[in-house]
């Protein structure tokens, strides 16, 4: 049951899915579970919608975790966010306001096939698990497969590379399903957040080119507020800025696609650490990492309720 679920350990896919069913069952006033489609291997792509029922077409925030299979701290954060949101509703004024005025769409595991493969076979798998009929290598980098300057700099057209962009944009059913959902809800979708690891960075568009986005001042200030909030928890410093200059140029990323499709605030978090454990962040660091990241996400969401 919900009270026994351990948010300070990593969970395999099946446990996460059972947990999602339990959230849906136990908190119907705030939670709705649905699927946006199926993965390459036929698994459902579950999403939890969080928010007080009421006004239709509330402003919304999308948060996806686990785009890259080996980045386990992502799914851990999505589950932590749901737990904190539900447990602090009516007790924490900020979260209460957020859930009353916004809907949050939380996708704890975007790359369900890859995540499962990283639990059972290859801990450091990154990509999806789609097959390529000409090459023995499997999988596409789901963060190089979006239809925005697709398969250009920072992406590879070779199926065996870890940054393989895929045979065509949205070739991956997981990417296609999420893109379709976001396109359908784009009027109400005010922020897109994608959780990755590791580097301790908060990135926003553009990834595919060196140029400032039109609403740079608002996005930069939202990012600054977010990393300040994150720092207030344990003093951990995050770098932030446009992905192309803060990290490197890469095409076909989800934040560039979201931004180009009208979502005014698009962020990618690269969570802890900066290269001590890398993808193998110990379970003992799940709580501090998720606590600080929650502060940052709440800061971004709160900003949506103000004018910029």
């Amino acid at each position, binding site marked *: 049951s919900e009270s026994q679920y*351990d948010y300070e*350990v*990593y*969970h*395999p896919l099946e*446990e996460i899915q059972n947990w999602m069913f339990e959230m849906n069952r136990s908190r119907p006033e705030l939670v709705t579970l649905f699927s946006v489609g199926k993965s390459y291997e036929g698994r459902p792509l579950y999403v939890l919608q969080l928010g007080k029922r009421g006004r239709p077409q509330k402003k919304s925030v999308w948060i996806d975790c686990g785009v890259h299979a080996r980045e386990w701290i992502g799914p851990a954060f999505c589950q932590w966010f749901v737990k904190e949101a539900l447990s602090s509703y009516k007790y924490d004024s900020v979260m209460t306001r957020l859930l009353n005025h916004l809907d949050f769409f939380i996708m704890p595991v975007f790359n369900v096939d890859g995540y499962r493969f990283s639990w059972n*076979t*290859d*801990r*450091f798998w*990154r990509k999806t698990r789609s097959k390529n009929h000409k090459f023995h290598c499997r999988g596409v*980098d789901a963060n190089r497969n979006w239809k925005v300057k697709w398969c250009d700099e*920072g992406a*590879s057209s070779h199926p065996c*590379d*870890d*940054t393989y962009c895929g045979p065509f944009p949205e070739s991956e059913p997981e990417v296609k399903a999420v893109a379709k959902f976001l396109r359908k809800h784009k009027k109400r979708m005010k922020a897109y957040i994608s959780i990755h690891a*590791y*580097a301790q960075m908060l990135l926003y568009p553009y990834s595919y080119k060196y140029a400032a986005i039109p609403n740079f001042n608002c996005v930069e200030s939202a990012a600054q507020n977010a990393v300040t909030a994150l720092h207030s928890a344990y003093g951990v410093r995050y770098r932030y800025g446009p992905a192309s200059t803060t*990290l*490197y140029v*890469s095409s076909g990323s989800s934040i560039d696609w979201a931004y180009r499709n009208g979502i005014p605030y698009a962020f990618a978090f690269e969570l802890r650490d900066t*290269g*001590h*454990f*890398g*993808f*193998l*962040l*110990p*379970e003992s660091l799940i709580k501090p990492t998720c606590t600080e990241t929650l502060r940052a996400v709440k800061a971004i969401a709160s900003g949506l309720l103000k004018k910029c």
Partner: protein
Amino acid sequence: YQYNNRYAGDQIFRITPTSDAEVRALQKILGQIKVDFWQPNSASLMHQNATVDVHVKRNDTQDLHARLKLEGIKYRVFISNLQNEIEKQSGYRSSRKRR
């Protein structure tokens, strides 16, 4: 062991090329030794003074040590035995609880 102990002896190198020449030399070395890029995500994204984290198979670690020393490229090993770190990450405590 988890993953059938397949990561025993594998290491994670953190390499810091400090010039374009070193980046080119590193691209050549890492083109010949099959490594898994942790950061950045591929050889083409490497640039000077930006750290490069790579997962090296146990049979290739000595070769990579030797080549980096030969080229005078700065590096350190931040995970000396990947299998140990994997066992530690999930810890028998929690997996026992899960199981």
